[in-house]
């Protein structure tokens, strides 16, 4: 991000005081956040803490995409919504909470279904994309669009008692297709509606996605390319696994890419819910 906003207001000095005195962050970190725009795809269990903590931290612009409306069964984990928002678009509900929390954050709600026809156009307006979605097809769509647009993708997922976190397409690391060139067989895939999820697992992973986005925005050291594995019922709770660098022969981010435009991801994955 180019630092077009190169100073902080008095209001911002007060609000972000705890970060301004933080060694290794300070005013330069705060200015970088102010000049960063982040797109959050999904305003559900993962997207809720991501949006809340990124707005609180002082990210200048947040985009939030979700086509669903708030239902009672969401409130067990999608804590950016509340009982009064039942029936409201999730993207709009998320924007309302963000504006109450930090009116300095410019928040754009996209009440649309992201697909191959609109993904690139939207994504190109942002510096970082957060994958907080709930299905395989959208995960490939986001990955492909981020590689084409040259944008890092902070990917989180949660199911039952487990969670996973990876940054794709960042500093020579792999993209989603480097790790998973072929989609999984549809019968092996579960989402939260069918498999269930302990709400706070999405809280843990979503907070960590927000953290990784902040680290990218402020150029903090992220260590080696890695996959973080979380399991609420295991000891230790977390394990970090070193990942391969990007693959030379990746069909998307490799040296001779064969995928050069967005495709039909529902067909590619053999399963829908895009």
């Amino acid at each position, binding site marked *: 991000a180019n630092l077009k906003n190169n100073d902080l207001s008095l209001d911002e000095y007060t609000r972000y005081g705890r970060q301004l005195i933080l060694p290794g962050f300070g005013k330069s970190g705060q200015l970088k956040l102010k000049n960063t725009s982040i797109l959050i795809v999904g305003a559900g269990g993962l997207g809720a803490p991501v949006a809340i903590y990124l707005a609180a931290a002082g990210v200048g612009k947040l985009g939030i995409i979700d086509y669903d409306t708030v239902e009672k069964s969401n409130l067990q984990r999608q804590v950016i919504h509340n009982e009064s928002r039942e029936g409201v678009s999730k993207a709009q509900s998320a924007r309302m909470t963000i504006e109450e929390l930090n009116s300095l954050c410019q928040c754009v709600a996209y009440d649309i279904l992201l697909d191959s026809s609109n993904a690139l156009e939207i994504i190109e307006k942002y510096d970082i994309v957060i994958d907080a979605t709930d299905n395989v097809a959208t995960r490939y769509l986001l990955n492909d669009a981020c590689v084409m647009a040259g944008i890092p993708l902070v990917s989180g*997922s949660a199911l039952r008692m487990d969670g996973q976190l990876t940054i794709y397409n960042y500093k020579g690391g792999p993209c989603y297709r480097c790790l998973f060139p072929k989609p999984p067989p549809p019968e092996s895939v579960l989402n939260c509606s069918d498999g269930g999820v302990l709400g706070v697992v999405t809280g843990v992973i979503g907070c960590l996605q927000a953290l990784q986005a902040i680290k990218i925005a402020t150029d903090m050291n992220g260590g080696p390319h890695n996959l973080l*594995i979380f399991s609420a019922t295991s000891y230790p709770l977390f394990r970090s696994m070193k990942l*391969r660098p990007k693959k030379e022969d990746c069909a998307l981010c490799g040296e001779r890419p064969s995928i050069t435009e967005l495709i039909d991801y529902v067909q590619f994955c053999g399963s829908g819910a895009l």
Partner: protein
Amino acid sequence: MSLIKVKLSFSGGMELLFNNIKQKHIEISSSINPPNATTMKDLVCKFNFTILIKISDNLLKERPELFMSGDTVRPGILVLINETDWELEGELEYEIKDGDDIVFISTLHGG
């Protein structure tokens, strides 16, 4: 030829295929396919139908497509050897050593 100890872990839903076992210490021959050293290929592609099927309590036998595809693991499963992507370790050619920590993890898509 001797016995080597290996720790297997199953995560991200893989444990459902393995009788809900998340971790299992096993002992295997250092040369399943003499005179060659035991490799990941032996574990995943052949051994599969003995040790892994035993651990899975025959669930794998009934639905091998949830674990295997061709001569390797199915798409969507990541294999990690000593906390490192097996791609960096030689994948199927990796020679398993005493004390190795091998994780089979299914990627999650929920949110």
